[in-house]
């Protein structure tokens, strides 16, 4: 039993985080919006060159053969910067799925090189990034279909989050699109990775609140010296501290594929969503009226949190999974970990 990241895991997480924090500033986000760019080409190329997209693809396919526990900290970092590019969906879901196909029609190599593969999983209403994708993984009768972009028609559905480029997709399943694989644990991976991003987003909301509360003065003192403001932010930090270990445990346990691990993922999504929601509202509040404006950066994070909290299964749906586990499997202090249930 050791619930800690290895030195290697910490090193790769830190390198990825440093790159993301260094390049994906809110100034960069604003510049992209001004030019209506979905992807920052320089950053996306760096992400591909660092090998981050292929972290969970098999080594034989040109990937790094790593697991979710290796990647989870990077998903957190992607949330921390409200990354517009689909690093998490590609590396965490689309690429591992493509790697399972008997014939991926060259799409795996294309994806590892940075060509976007979008996801139309049945857990979600719409398809993100369909416009910039070369192909979309779509669902029919619980089977995965690979459909090239030219064979679909798409319609933009405007999200409150300008970097969530959502589309409804019209397409027809056929023998050519059928892959003969199911979605497997994709729903859990999607929920887990959304949870990890929300941990990062929550921490970012706290960090910008702290920075503002040190700077902004009222009654002759920084507002962060007043207990009412301190406690508002501290409460959000407490929620983050008791959601993050759940997310990390879920990443390590997910491959077991049991009801206990599905419930852990559900718990992770609920807890991270609640922490992020609390942190986002605290961030708006600490910034006062400025927190409601376009000019202050809070909205980038609040919008992503609002979206991810309901994506990949709503909190209500995830609660039902937790209740199922709690009422049908044994519980107790010796059964904290899914491995202990056998």
């Amino acid at each position, binding site marked *: 039993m050791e619930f800690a990241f290895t030195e290697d895991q910490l090193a790769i997480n830190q390198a990825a985080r440093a790159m993301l924090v260094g390049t994906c500033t809110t100034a960069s986000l604003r510049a992209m919006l001004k030019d209506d760019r979905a992807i920052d080409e320089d950053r996306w190329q760096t992400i591909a060159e660092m090998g981050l997209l292929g972290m969970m693809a098999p080594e034989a396919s040109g990937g790094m053969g790593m697991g979710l526990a290796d990647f989870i900290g990077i998903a957190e970092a992607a949330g921390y910067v409200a990354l517009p590019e689909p690093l998490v969906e590609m590396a965490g879901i689309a690429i591992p799925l493509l790697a399972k196909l008997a014939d991926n029609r060259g799409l795996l190599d294309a994806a590892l090189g940075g060509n976007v593969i979008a996801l139309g999983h049945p857990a979600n209403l719409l398809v993100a990034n369909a416009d910039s994708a070369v192909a979309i993984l779509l669902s029919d009768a619980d089977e995965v279909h690979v459909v090239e972009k030219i064979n679909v028609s798409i319609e933009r559905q405007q999200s409150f989050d300008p970097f969530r480029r959502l589309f409804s997709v019209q397409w027809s399943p056929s023998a050519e699109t059928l892959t003969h694989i199911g979605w497997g644990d994709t729903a859990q991976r999607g929920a887990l990775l959304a949870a990890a991003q929300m941990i990062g987003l929550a921490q970012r909301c706290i960090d910008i609140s702290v920075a503002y509360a040190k700077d902004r003065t009222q009654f002759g003192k920084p507002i962060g*010296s007043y207990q009412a403001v301190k*406690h508002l*932010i501290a409460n959000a930090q407490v929620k983050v501290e008791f959601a993050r270990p759940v997310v990390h445990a879920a990443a390590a346990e997910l491959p077991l594929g049991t009801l206990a691990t599905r419930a852990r993922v559900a718990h992770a999504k609920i807890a991270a969503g609640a922490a992020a929601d609390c942190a986002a509202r605290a961030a708006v509040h600490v910034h006062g009226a400025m927190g409601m404006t376009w000019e202050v950066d809070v909205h980038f994070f609040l919008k992503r949190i609002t979206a991810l909290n309901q994506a990949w299964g709503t909190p209500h749906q995830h*609660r039902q999974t937790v*209740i199922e586990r709690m009422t049908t499997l044994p519980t*107790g202090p010796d059964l*904290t970990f899914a491995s202990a249930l056998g």
Partner: protein
Amino acid sequence: MKLEYTPEQQTFRKEVRTWLEANIPPGALPSFDLTREGFEAHRSWERKLNEGRWGMVTWPEDLGGRGLDYIRWLIFEEEYYRAGAPTRVNQNGIFLLAPTMMEYGTDEQKARFLPRMAAGDDVWAQAWSEPGVGSDLAGVRSTCTRDGDHYLLNGQKIWSSRAVFADWAFGLFREPGSERHKGMSLVLFPLDAPGVTRRPIERMDGEMVFAEIFLDNVRVPVADRLGHEGQGWAVCMATAGFERGLLLRSPARYQVGVSKLLALWQAHKDTLPASMAERVAQCWMDADAYALAIYAMVSKLDKGGRIGPESSTNKIFWSELDIAITAAAMDILGERGELMPAASAAGDVGTWLADMIFAISGPIYAGSNEIQRNIIAERMLGLPRA
């Protein structure tokens, strides 16, 4: 990251389980906060634990422990709570004073105090708060006046849990004339020393869980000071870190509480609204979240890490969780919740009322939650002091 117990850890769990099953006293022991008999019954249990070398498994073998890591301590705690074993009457000693003594004590002090503590020969109380000093602990007024190789202790301490029947106390005192965080020392003193007067304080349910301690020229050797003279504040903060962050409230306590809540809900769910399932599930998740956070903390400690200001997040979380668990149980019990267990209409009220009353004190003791939020804001997040 390895979230499986090793075969050795599983064997250890079995060994703990087997020993507890064979040795736990049948039926609940009488309260240690009501009568001398109840207190002594718990002392006997501590003695028995120690004879099996289960008193404190993380301590070095020569002090009565097994020299095990904190993961095994968690496994021990899980089995201890799972078995429903008696509450540790010496928790102030073994969970608070002992780890501090390991860090700040001399070899002589460790050899003299820890084996007796492990055996239950000395049961300890904490003497920090004063009538005028609660959250603002640096305002302590009780004094330790140097007199050769002795101190004369004077003043008044209050809210000392177990002090009604305990044998020794560890108290925070200051040199006369010193102010705030300077000039403080942590001094150990016997509760039956000449000049010590104890006055029990009755809790709202009639138990005497704490006492007031009056000190009138109590003479103790300088050798019974823990840490350097004037270093008392730092020593106390180390104790507080253990208290809030890890040892006082191990996660198994709440996981067992949630298992009881789950059983209560299952017995009554046909007459309860569906939303009650979600409340129970929230408690269940929070207890697991606390366990996971502690496993992460312990994995860090076992690699040589230290408990930092994040211990304050633990204290807020477990105290609020305890309230959530007991409040949910009270809502399930409905009108019967107010009945004392002996009332003929009480049915399966069990100890929920007493548990709920105790949970209410959680956000107050071990440093109020407001103080913990200040610590998080100032030391974890770097917000300016008021």
